[in-house]
């Protein structure tokens, strides 16, 4: 796990690992989902105790294959909040979920069409190596959190993103 921020690494090691290898179309998906929830609960509790709570998510459908929520990042003492959403792909957990921040679509080069965040080269090999032990919590921790930490300051400083208190809205195409 080279090239990762030490805090990320230390946090990651504390999130419980998942055992069930089941995609959304598999029979054991319910079991997998339970494990996902357990991991998420643990991760959230950790964040709370570290005073590092940075997201809110919930399942958008009863199957637990679509999730929505919010995430935020504090930059220069200002909190910048964004909507987030993602689907659980069919080939999950071999394939990581693609997290989307629709509000930032086309505001940054580190984003695919539709707002899917573009992750570092380190992410995919690590996810593949640890399949099926990594879950949604891990994806957030390894994927979204570093992305926000890297991109939000640039977006804010370049003026692409303005704080909600400012009257100006985010520039849309």
């Amino acid at each position, binding site marked *: 796990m080279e090239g990762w921020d030490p805090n990320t690494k230390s946090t990651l090691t504390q999130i419980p690992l998942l055992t069930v290898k089941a995609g959304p179309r598999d029979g054991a*998906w*319910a079991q997998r989902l339970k494990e996902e*929830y357990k991991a*998420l*609960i643990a991760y*959230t509790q950790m964040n709370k105790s570290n*005073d590092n709570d940075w997201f809110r998510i*919930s399942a958008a459908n*009863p*199957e637990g294959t679509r999730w929505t929520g919010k995430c935020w990042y504090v930059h220069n003492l200002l909190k910048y909040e964004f909507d987030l959403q993602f689907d659980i792909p069919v080939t999950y957990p071999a394939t990581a979920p693609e997290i989307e921040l629709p509000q930032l679509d086309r505001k940054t080069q580190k984003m695919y069409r539709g707002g899917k965040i573009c992750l570092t080269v380190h992410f995919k090999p690590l996810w593949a190596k640890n399949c099926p032990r990594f879950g949604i919590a891990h994806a957030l921790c390894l994927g979204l959190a570093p992305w926000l930490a890297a991109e939000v300051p640039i977006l804010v400083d370049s003026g692409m993103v303005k704080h909600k208190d400012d009257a100006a809205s985010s520039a849309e195409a």
Partner: protein
Amino acid sequence: MMDDELLELQRQFEFAQQAKSSIRLSERNLIEFVQKLHELRFIDFDLLHTVSGKEYITPEQLRYEIVSEVEKLGRVSLIDLADTTGVDLYHVEKQTEHAVADNPGYMLIQGEIISERHWDSVAEEINERLQECSQIALAELATQLHIGVELLTSVLEARLGTVVKGRLEGGQLYTPAYVARVSAMVRGAARGITVPTNLSALWSSLKHLLQEIDGASGVAVEGSFFQGLFNIQLKECQILGSLRAGIYWTPSVFSNAQKECIDSLFSQNSFINYETLNKLGISQPVQFLQSRYPDVLALVNAFVHPSLTEMVNAAVEDAIEHGSCDAFVKDLYDRLEKELEIFNASGSSSMSLSDDVSSASDTKMTHDSSASLELNQTPSESTGKRIVEKGSKKKKGIEDPLTALKPLANYLRPLLLNSMKEKWKAILMENANKMKQILDDMQRKVDEAFLNLQLYEKALELFDEDQSASVVLHWHLLGALAPSIADSLFINLEIYNKLKSGLQVDNSQNSELFYLSPGERIGLVKTFPGSLSKKAIAVAESLEGKRLETFMVALRDLAEDRLAIIKFCTFYSSPYDLISQVSAETDPISLLAKVVSLLYGQFHNKALQAPGRAISVAVTRLKDKLDESAYKVLTDYREATVTLLALVAASSGDVSTLGFLPEMPQLKGLALTTSQSWS
């Protein structure tokens, strides 16, 4: 598919997300906060921080941590402590000093804290190792433990006998068993000695013995170790004797034997010689005996018991009665006169004349009896004593000691003379053999040399008309060959004469020819007896002259003298010698000389021996005898040698490195072919 569990989990998740975050201060906030507290004196003690900047630590806590570390490990270096506590070295050192000051069991040595308990465990380990190896060198231990030898010594000394069961001696540690073994060796060696010895020699031989026994595994033991063990045993009276200056040991066996021997000798003979005492190993005979026998008389060469005085008096009276010791008495009277003078001069009037007589006669008696002992003439001693006993009838205090002792002297004198004559004969016999040998040697050597000289003398006749060459040739022979003959002749004559007269001569000089300086030579020949001396002087003087004939004549003259024992044989030719020499010769210069000599011999029937300077003249003379090519070879060769000599003299002056001239084989060939016709 939702089931209760899932629902429950969902709810929990929501709950967790909604829960309030605990509020945390950042590290920076905290540091500022603590510093603020410190400034405001809410925290009034020193606060140290770790190197990583993540922790605060109080000094007491640091000290506590240091102490616990030392307790755990026994021996910690300050640098390690700095690493484990994470605090800067300066603070660690400060706290260490406090800790060491507070705790007597700790010591700070070369940047390490070491506790006493650690030393105890180290000592135990050392003890185990010691019991295995039976001896260990401290230096080895010190390097293993990374401490100084002095520290190790102090640590071990404190624990010798308790934890470490051994003995520390001279930088080595020994087990008691080993010490006992070596003690036994020392004891055995010391008890085995029966004469006074220097102990250091004994220890070195013991050392070698130990090394042989132990082989490679043993460590070398020092002499001081043996000496220490020896001293202990001496104190405990396991070994008996006396030690002087700590090194010179005299076993009591020896001193007892010595005393007994002296006592027995003295009681048997009533007198004892100082020489005997010296032989027995007593260096101060006078003090020694006087301390033991206070009433003994100390004479010049011996001690005499007073009882002997009476015996001697009686003997003297008896001798006087028989009238058989005139010469003895005369001698005695001389001595008496001398002694009287001495005594009168010193003014000791307590000695009466009779005492003088007795003491003087004592001396003479003991001398004679000891002299007779040396000559192994035991009959004389017993007869002497018989005479002494017979004389006991007379009373003391004879007024004319001369006539009394004369018969005794007359009797003893012939005996002494006889023994002397026999000794003389033995020496002469020995000398006779040596003389014969010298004679043979001398004859042989002088024959050879004289032969050569005659040979060369004949050749000189060829050069009579050439003055310069002739002079050079004569001078060469007189200077080179003649003196060696003369000198060896003289020296051997001298030795012969000495041997004949019975003197001892050492054997070292008899094998070689000798060389004397002219002064030495003249001095030597003057010591020869009578006419021999005159003729020898003539020979010596002729050596300084110019003509060889003078020398030859003088030498022949000497030979005819009846006291000279060398005959000079006449000339006969032996050319073959020279031919073989020529073929074998490798030195270019001497080759030339020999070839010339050979050629001369061949053409003139006279061998020529010539020095370098005369060679050119000699070669020129050969011109009409050799054919042209041969002559050219000869002259070319001569020139080559001259050049070579000049080169050598210019470069190093060392003639022995002349090397090989290319023309040498040619010259050899020339000489050998022309010598075919040698008669």
